[in-house]
């Protein structure tokens, strides 16, 4: 009991000491040995997996893109940026870039417009709307290969549904997969169909979360449903809309399975998109160094869009 007043000053000194420590750690954030041990222990597994499957292939790709390689992918001669120069001056590669752009923009625009349309439709309070909500999002459960085969049947020039319809209506049969323009359109249609489930679901969720009273207030003030759609729904879901656009865009750049199953890049390179081209250059032609350079260009393109997404989403969250 008598000691307690005497121990007070020490307590004071001690707490001042602790205070100093806290201040120091706030400034430099240094970890002691034990903390470091735990940090690495927790980071270890994910670092290992990322290292083996992401970082190593990435640096290996960068490395290979600066060399010429033999047919099994071993680097032989260092050529610096020659692979990139070759690519960016090759009409063939620039064509691939162009068709990829056409494809990606077409897919994104159509997916967003259709997704928005369906989501808006499904948000209406109508009888049996639940069935349509399920149907609209159903393509989420369909794999690329199934979708490709399904649409190949529809596009088949002699027995396909579209060909039969055209014949029945006495219209010329569209050469879906054998004409350059139509092949691109066919691939876009198939991709949009595949994307629609996910896009619909996300946009539907966003529309559902717009407070009902906003629409009620607007309808009392005399706004038509068209006006409400463009002046309430669109601005309210604009962050989601932007997110879905970027995701669709990036997925578009990465499109491979569909191309492989439906057109194999043809006819005459009309659908020879970037990823499919990388695959062919590497594993058909054995030109690993060029394929590596193409991969890096693709990475940069996608990284730019991702960056754009981050920047805009940071700023444009409008409320």
């Amino acid at each position: 009991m008598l000691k307690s007043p005497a121990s007070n000053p020490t307590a004071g000194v001690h707490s001042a000491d602790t205070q100093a420590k806290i201040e120091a750690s706030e400034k430099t954030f240094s970890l002691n040995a034990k903390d470091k041990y735990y940090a690495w222990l927790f980071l270890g597994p994910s670092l290992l997996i990322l290292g083996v499957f992401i970082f190593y292939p990435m640096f290996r790709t960068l490395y290979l893109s600066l060399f010429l390689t033999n047919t099994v992918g071993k680097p032989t001669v260092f050529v610096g940026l020659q692979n990139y120069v070759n690519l960016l001056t090759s009409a063939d590669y620039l064509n691939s870039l162009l068709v990829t752009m056409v494809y990606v923009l077409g897919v994104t625009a159509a997916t967003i417009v259709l997704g928005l349309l369906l989501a808006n439709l499904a948000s209406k309070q109508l009888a049996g709307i639940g069935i349509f909500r399920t149907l609209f999002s159903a393509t989420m459960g369909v794999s690329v290969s199934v979708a490709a085969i399904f649409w190949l049947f529809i596009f088949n020039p002699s027995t396909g549904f579209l060909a039969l319809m055209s014949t029945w209506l006495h219209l010329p049969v569209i050469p879906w997969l054998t004409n350059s323009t139509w092949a691109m359109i066919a691939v876009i249609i198939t991709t949009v169909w595949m994307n629609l489930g996910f896009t619909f679901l996300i946009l539907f969720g966003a529309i559902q979360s717009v407070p009902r009273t906003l629409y009620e207030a607007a309808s009392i003030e005399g706004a038509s449903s068209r006006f409400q759609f463009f002046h309430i729904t669109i601005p309210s879901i604009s962050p989601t809309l932007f997110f879905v656009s970027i995701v669709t865009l990036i997925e578009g750049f990465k499109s491979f399975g569909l191309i492989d199953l439906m057109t194999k890049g043809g006819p005459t390179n009309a659908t020879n998109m970037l990823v499919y081209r990388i695959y062919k250059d590497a594993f058909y032609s054995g030109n690993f160094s060029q394929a590596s350079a193409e991969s890096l260009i693709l990475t940069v393109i996608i990284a730019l869009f991702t960056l754009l997404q981050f920047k805009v989403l940071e700023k444009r969250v409008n409320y």
Partner: protein
Amino acid sequence: MSITLNDVRKDYDSQTAVLKNVSAKIETGEFFVIVGPSGCGKSTLLRMIAGLTPITAGEIKIDDTVVNDLPPKARKLTMVFQNYALFPFLSVWDNVAFGLKARKLATDDINARVKEALKMVNLTKLAKRKPRELSGGQRQRVALARAVASDAKICLMDEPLSNLDAQLRIKMRQEIYALQRKLGLTLIYVTHDQVEAMTMADHIMVLNDRHVQQIGTPSDIYQNPRNAFVAKFFGTPQINILPAKRSEENSHIVNVSSDLQIVLDEEAPSANLQIGIRPDDMQVKRADGVESNAVVKNTEFLGDETIVYATLNSGSDIHVVLPGKADFRSYEPIRVTANANLMFFDPDGKRIDLSKEAYVHA
């Protein structure tokens, strides 16, 4: 513009008659308050007048036009929502201008009206802000400005003050009242707060249990409640409602157990009654020398008055408001009396009007 409700009824698929037999006449320029406890259908009624919820049967008229099947925008009214329904992505100015733009008014006209409306609610300086940068009271005022700018002569308000704190509520109450008077709006105002109803209304509609309980002026509703529910809903603290029986020996005498004896100048209308006495119409005396009829539970001192909570010997809880400070200890035996403004209800709570005076025999 006046509004007439004629035997309006609402059924939902899952629930029949959430509202029935609702009839009322709301005059031009009137401040009409619909009040009732949660879930009594008051918001539903307002939404039916607005046209946001269809009515099942009956008739709603604006002036002489039946509007049952008219969409909200054709009814030429405005509505202020509980959560204000402001567009979060638009500035204050654009929020107020929204409806005017939707109706494709001329830009000059829109600008003039928005400017005027913002001035009227003192928001001119905040015109460029987004709703999230405003306080609750300011958001409320944006919603009011929107109603003002629309120039409609009927305004509906659905619990507009319930998201504000007590101080601000009193302030906004006065602002809304002043605005209504200034613009000559026919205002229908929904609230669950009896104080808001009493302070602002020209006429009050009390809704409960799917029915209109009473329509009347605030003083009428307070002094002449048509049933026990209305009597209990208005007035703080609540009115005391005590069960009573007609004396078997003398039909002019009504007893609240053996605690209070009420003498009537006429025969008691039924054998079983309920007596309503406002807390400030009762008196309390220390039971010194007189027989006690109640025991004090506790007292609450509020500065200008004291509320005494007590239990009658028969077991009924009562409360009495006494002016100034009153010193009673808990468990102190007291004598409670009353001598004015007694109300009589039948066992179902329906008001019984007596033609002559009644007084408590102390």
